[in-house]
């Protein structure tokens, strides 16, 4: 569901709030580069709370609507389309 979690590294103050707020535990902290990263992008619900909660507005959620949990035909009728 998540194509990319864009991090404005100049704006990021490394407060790690984004790793706290995600209710599906998508975001973890990259110790080596000292910035957040989306470790489990498939679990992103695109609620964008990480964007909203970031005090510096340093994050941008780029969703990937083509990569759902399910293939698109599932949501219609089986065998008829």
């Amino acid at each position, binding site marked *: *569901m998540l194509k990319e979690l864009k991090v404005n590294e100049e704006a990021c103050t490394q407060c790690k709030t984004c790793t*706290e*707020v*995600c*209710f*599906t*535990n998508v975001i973890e902290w990259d110790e080596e580069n000292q910035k957040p990263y989306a*470790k*489990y992008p*498939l*679990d992103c*619900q*695109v*609620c*964008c*709370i990480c964007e909203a909660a970031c005090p510096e507005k340093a994050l941008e*959620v780029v*969703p990937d*609507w*083509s990569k*759902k*949990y*399910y293939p*698109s035909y*599932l*949501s*219609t*009728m*089986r065998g*008829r389309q």
Partner: protein
Amino acid sequence: MTDLAMLGTVHSTDILIVGGALSGLTAAITAKETDPQLDVLIVDKARASKGWAGKASRTAGLISYVSKDNDPEDFVKFNLNEIGFFLNDQHMLRDFAYNSRRLVEHATVWGVEYKRDENGGIEVAQWPFPFVTGGIDPDMCLAMSAYAKKQGVSFIDRIVIVDLLKDGGRMAGACGFSIVDGSFHIFNAKSVILACGSQNFDITPIWCSTGIGQAMAFRAGAQMRNAEFANMGDFARVDEDGKTLYYGMHGGAHIGHDHLYAKGENISQKWRPGFHTSYDPHAANAWYQETIAGNGPVVMDMNEFNARGGGSEFFKYHPEGLRRYTHNQEVAGYPFQNQVFQVVPGVISELSCIRINNQAETTIPGLFAVGDAAGEGSARAGAVPTPPAKIHGTGLMNALFLGSKGGPGAATHARAILASGTATTVDVAEVERIREETFAPLQRKGGVSGREIIHTVQEAMAPVDYVMVKSEARMTEALGWVDKAKAMLPEMAAEDYHELSKCVDARSMVIGAELFYRASLERKESRGFHLREDYPQTDNENWLKWIIITRDRDGMKITTEPIPFDAYDYKPPVG
């Protein structure tokens, strides 16, 4: 003999709450209001200690209730006749009708804020029936978490609970693991409250609850009720290339379900006349019937929707709700307003079938279930997914309502156990077995991932002609997918603790899907959200009954129970 402490960290508490979003926090706070001396501990997969947990605070921030200007008895009658079709627990429905407003106002004590008018009253939009919708601060859990801590509630974050523990016939606690370091935790408790959401089968964004509460309660032997009504859904918008689909609050298709057109004809009015407060399977059926008749594609006309008041009715009192709603669609690249676009129905699901009584207690003494975990099982709303999917803003109200039942109920139970002087002990061998089973996927090489099994369950739970418009043949086919997923469970493998939690989800989804289809096959009529092509009529003569499912060794035992109308004020229409 193995010592419990050798198996993991042992925690003791009077009340253990699994899940720390709106219903769990409500239960915790009301338990403390009932008896401040009791120890209350919330464990959560996310970070409930900081108010970041669950899907309650990811919604548009709408809360619906029976206002001071509404007649509670009218609300009860409306629910019985238009929503629940007399499968309601009328005691609980009346309790809700008379107390929802009090609860909304009481929550301000916990720091919850509402959009207010110039006189300080809560601003509401009145529905054309006795119910109003107001705006609640979507970040209500931040305030409530802080308030709960001030009252002495404890929290442990990032724990996945995997199974319940019993002492004979009553509840004794639960156990689970940390998704941070894999440490195993054993919780000894006098009362346990399941507040960990419904089963959404992870099909649509935001609605990603994985039903571990229903699965754990079922495995522990608790009764399930009304599982056949779990088919909540929405229309999904189809993009320009006809492939990419997305649902619900991200889709711009939400609540436009009365304005479906095929070949220029309003098929919503053809198949489902009148004004409807929300999507239901009859709206999906309109799409289904027209599509198989060759009249597709079906489009949704948002011009029509907005011309009739549309979205503004829902959001004019709550700018923040509207901001979040439209923001999600802007992110997706599809603005909300005034468009005509192709839609297909999709499944959200809302399996919440743990049977509870008026104190939110399950059929296992000491085990309680609140919020989305037990909406249908409470039977408060009857023949619909609960929180009643027919009305927007009922999810948050359901969390407050059932949470406020479970907290005092669990406190009373814990106090009684304390007063009796009876020790609550957990079976060490059982904990050892659960621990071994839980971590087994980490040891397997080359097995099946939890996600693959979840995907197989989704093959059974996403198609609209399995879930929304039901028939025996198609449901039997769907159960074939469930059986396939079940057969994969012994081969589950995980590489880390996060993926291990997906294995727990997968196991829960297999149980949830089977509960839904077993109950749906049993109910040979159509009623509320349960729509069967092969039994299209509502059959009051034979089906004013609840379908109850309990564990029977490794299978499911299905029984029916007549609705106790002798004890209720309102009787169903004759015939």
